[in-house]
């Protein structure tokens, strides 16, 4: 089962390519984005180490379970509520970005509402599936999508017209100016370990999630994905020209060509990847969110059935559909920026709390 932990890390790594992360990083390309990326990745890796090692102390238990049994209810409930909201936020941002993209690039005449209904219903159905089955689903989706991503990345890097000088221009800008936005955005890509909050219940055996070489491997992979997310768009569209693209990655992949492929435009391969990863990423995060909500919210009975999760799902649904028609892309981007910045203190706090509980247990 341990390999599923890496899938969770991977899916979060890839979702960063499809949400606002590249856009945020690119907007800071003149003031030391590389340094921020390094700090963000290291921070993410450090948090990953602390969190997983604390969760290992509680094999087979969820975070909600651990926290509410070790802390008084007046702390644990608001805390878990906050965590659940943050998980909801991840899925929310992915979905909103995806609705925009699908409208703009795949089917421009589709009303936002229809797209929102279609995707949100899928994600809610996926979030309601049993946790282990969701992991199997995740594995299958990654199995189909990894080769596609690899193909796109290989095509991007071997493109002879990639402007390496534009990419190199990023380096001298890397002064020690840091921006919280870009640290938050690049840290976010490694936060997949937080999904253990729910999925820890399946990893009940002995052994640890991470050892030093796996950490280094994940760190390198994370760093290279985050770097790729800014390097490829800059190399294709130029460091001065990239900023005007609203969706840097999509416009970038449209500049790649596979002359002998069945589909010549690499854009569509990337869009396929985009759809799959967006949906699965949102599904996994909402599953965790729903799971925590179920643990902390009172059970609401309707005809002898517990309908809490239905109600929460409905709130999720309404949340996405209403904002998808009322907010525009720039407002969404603002929300994303606020979210990523707030993610840094929230995740540090959360990890510290778990670490403290784990320490206390051992003592």
């Amino acid at each position: 089962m341990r390999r599923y932990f890496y899938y969770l890390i991977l899916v979060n790594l890839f979702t960063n390519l499809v949400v606002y992360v590249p856009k945020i990083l690119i907007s800071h390309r003149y003031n030391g984005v590389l340094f921020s990326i390094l700090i963000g990745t290291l921070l993410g890796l450090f948090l990953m180490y602390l969190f997983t090692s604390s969760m290992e102390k509680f094999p087979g238990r969820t975070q909600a379970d651990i926290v509410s049994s070790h802390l008084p209810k007046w702390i644990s409930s608001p805390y878990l509520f906050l965590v659940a909201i943050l998980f909801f936020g991840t899925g929310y941002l992915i979905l909103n970005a995806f609705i925009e993209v699908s409208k703009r690039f795949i089917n421009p005449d589709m009303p936002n509402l229809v797209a929102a209904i279609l995707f949100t219903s899928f994600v809610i159905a996926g979030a309601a599936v049993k946790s282990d089955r969701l992991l199997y689903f995740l594995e299958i989706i990654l199995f189909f999508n990894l080769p596609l991503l690899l193909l796109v990345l290989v095509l991007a890097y071997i493109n002879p017209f990639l402007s390496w000088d534009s990419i190199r221009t990023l380096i001298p800008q890397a002064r020690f100016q840091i921006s919280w936005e870009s640290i938050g955005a690049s840290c976010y890509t490694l936060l997949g370990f937080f999904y253990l909050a729910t999925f820890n219940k399946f990893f009940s055996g002995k052994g640890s999630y991470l050892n030093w070489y796996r950490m280094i491997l994940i760190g390198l992979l994370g760093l290279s994905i985050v770097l790729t997310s800014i390097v490829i768009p800059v190399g294709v569209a130029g460091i001065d020209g990239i900023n005007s693209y609203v969706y840097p990655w999509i416009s970038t992949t449209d500049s790649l060509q596979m002359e002998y492929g069945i589909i010549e435009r690499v854009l569509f391969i990337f869009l396929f990847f985009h759809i799959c990863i967006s949906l699965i990423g949102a599904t996994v995060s909402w599953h965790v969110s729903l799971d925590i909500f179920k643990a902390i919210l009172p059970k609401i009975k309707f005809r002898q059935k517990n309908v809490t999760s239905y109600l929460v799902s409905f709130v999720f649904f309404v949340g996405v559909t209403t904002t998808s028609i009322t907010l525009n892309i720039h407002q969404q981007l603002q929300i994303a920026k606020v979210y990523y910045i707030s993610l840094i203190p929230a995740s540090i706090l959360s990890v510290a709390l778990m670490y403290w509980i784990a320490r206390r247990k051992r003592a």
Partner: protein
Amino acid sequence: MKINTLFTSILMLILLSLTLTGCGFKDIDKRNFVLAVGIDPGEKEEYVKVNLKLAIPNAEKTKEVRDFTVITEEAKTIAEAVRIIKSRVDKEIDFGQLKTIILSEELLERDLQSVLDWFIRRRDIQQISYVALSKTDTINILQLSPKGEKIPSNNILLTFSTTGTKSSYVTTVQLYQLRRALVEKGTDPILPIIEIVQEKFRVNKLKIINGEKENMLDLTPEETKLFNSIFNEYKMGTIVIEGKLYFIVALDKMKTSYKLVTNTEKPYIKYDIIMKGFIEESETELKSESLPKYEKVTSKNMEKRVQNLFEKLQEAGVDPFGFGLRYRATHRGSKEEKMEKWNAIYPDIEFRVNVKAEITGTGIIE
């Protein structure tokens, strides 16, 4: 929790959402595919003339499928012209298959970026479309359908893409490359020039544009060939060596790298070229023992020609190789500062070209 009820209700929701749609559905036979676009300056000031080459699909398999029409419209902007054209045709105009964009040379006197803006902004126009320049009205290019062309506008496409012919005279510029070079400070865009000669297309010249300073430079076919072999490290090219010895070297390896040295008193660019090839044709008798001699001759010859090319570019104030961008990539400071410094350096910079030629044989005969 009954998952099935959830699945059912979601299916119902999806079905419900079906009633909301219906738009976006447009059958392929109700679309007019634009295969090429030509942009000319309009008759009126500030107006543009847009020529769209539309394919007419043909149901008859036996007939040669090469029917097309070219529709022309003049308006203040490209978008407006396209909108007017839309009202003139019976089907939806689809730019999804657009692969060729021909710009009129006179258009360069205006701001190229604002002309290209429409192409970049539209989601359905491929960033990998080929862009070329025409000396005459673009409608001539669009209307020419050379013999043997099965699909309208396919000949231009095959000329530029690597699936068709490969020639070192042809410079390939795709939309995103043009746009990048235009916007990027420190590098200047190039555009191939397409002409009609004897009912056929000919692409063997190149134009280099400097967006800000309004400098332009036309390269001759020979220079274009040389430019392509260095700029794209074009492997299939040939080099003609004239002088005491006359022979042609067919390249099968071309590697270039350069170093920008600005901390010395006199800044210079050290340009290294490593090439490998064999002798394809010769007027005098060649001996395989004296290959080193030929190598030396080739190196000297190339060095001189590349040097001349660079100096010509420098003199014209254009920088298609992106030396300025390299300067930006290797120096600290803000974008504007660096560009100012570079603009002062470039006119006086020295080129030190160093060619290492290796000739592997004299072909299959001696």
